[in-house]
Every structure is written in C-alpha cells, then in structure tokens.
C-alpha cells in the first residue's frame, strides 16, 4: 500500500478559513510537519486544495515520528568496532577472596580493633 507523504512547506497564515480547514483535516498544524495518507482520490482532492503550501511524494512505507527523527539525526562521526566484554557480577569478589587466602597471618600482632594482621 502506498501513501502520500505530505509536508507543510508554507504557512497558511492570512489565507481563507477553508484553506486552513483543509490543512487541519489533513492533520497539518505547523510548518515542516509531515503526515502520511493513503493514495486515494479523497486525499488527492484535499492536497489539490492546498497544493501551493505543501510538498508531496508517493512513498511505500509510513514512517513514524521516531523513524523520521532517527533519519534526521546527524552522523556521530565515529563507530564502535567491538564492544568490551562486561565484567561478571561475581568475578571481582572471587579475585579478592583468592588474594586474601594467599596472605599470611602474623602471629602475636593485632590491630587496635583486635583483628588479625595479614601480610
């Protein structure tokens, strides 16, 4: 199914009420707004009424507001070749436990809190 992609290019300020009514019926409320309507005589007639104000193209797909937004987004200027593997939740804790197991307890010495001193 194909659609008319209609973009309001010129404002309807100061134009007759009927012209502004047609724009409202098409769903166009501000400049550079884009709407999609199926290719039907009914919509073609409405576009004919405001042909001086709009830009029209026939397209196959209806784009959402977010698709349009993404299409308009400028190129960031870089790309990520490969993502770094994230650390697992348990891995750092295990490493700490392995290090503390290697440490020796110094006999006869205690900290002020009464804990063992490890080297």
């Amino acid at each position: 199914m194909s659609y008319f992609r209609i973009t309001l290019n010129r404002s309807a300020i100061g134009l007759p009420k009927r012209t502004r009514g047609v724009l409202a019926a098409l769903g166009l409320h501000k400049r550079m707004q884009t709407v999609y309507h199926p290719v039907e005589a009914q919509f073609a007639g409405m576009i004919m009424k405001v042909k001086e104000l709009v830009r029209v193209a026939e397209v196959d797909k209806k784009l959402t507001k977010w698709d349009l937004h993404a299409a308009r987004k400028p190129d960031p200027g870089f790309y990520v070749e490969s993502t770094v593997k994230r650390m697992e939740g348990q891995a750092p804790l295990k490493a700490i436990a392995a290090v503390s197991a290697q440490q020796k307890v110094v006999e006869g010495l205690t900290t002020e809190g009464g804990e063992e001193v490890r080297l």
Partner: protein
Amino acid sequence: MFGAFRVTNSLSGGLLWKIPWRLSPTQKYRQRQRLKAVDNVVETLSKALAKKGETLQALERWKAEMPTEAEMLPKDKYTMFDRKEKRYRKGIHKLPKWTRVSQRLNPPGY
C-alpha cells in the same frame, strides 16, 4: 536639500510603503521555483492515482486548463491582467498573498 530637514517622500508625507513596479531577478527566480513546485505536486498526485486506475475531476481540470511553468509565457509568469492599469498589466507581486496563490491565466488578448 541635505541633512535632517531635506525633503523626501517619507519626511513630507509620513509613513510611506513603496512596492517596486517590477520584480527583481531573484524574485522572478523564486516565482519560477514556486510554479515548478506546484506542477510537481500535481504530477505526483496524477501519477499516484493513475497507478491505481483512479482519477479526479479537480486534477483533470487543472491539467486541461492550466499551463505548466515551462509552457507559460514570461509575461504571464511575472505580470497579471488588471483593468485599471495602463496597458492592462501589473506586476504579479501586487496580488495579495501572491507567493501562496495560483495566478496563471489571463484574459486572451491582454
């Protein structure tokens, strides 16, 4: 003659808005672009409807009656008929909202 008290149109008459009698080359260029844009919309509509085998009375009438930008004479692109003007022609920019309305046809012979 010079200085703050010189006699100019705006100083002696107050508010003065002057519309030049003819379009500048840039205005004429933009007028052509606008005419082409309208032709483009009409063509897109008629092609899209023709694919479905449909047509529209308003569309057929426009195509039958209205010349395209390429078919129009320069005289009709930039000037329009006015019965009150000398030689019955005035610049199209005197037409209210002239950049947003279609004014392509003039009475034959004028």
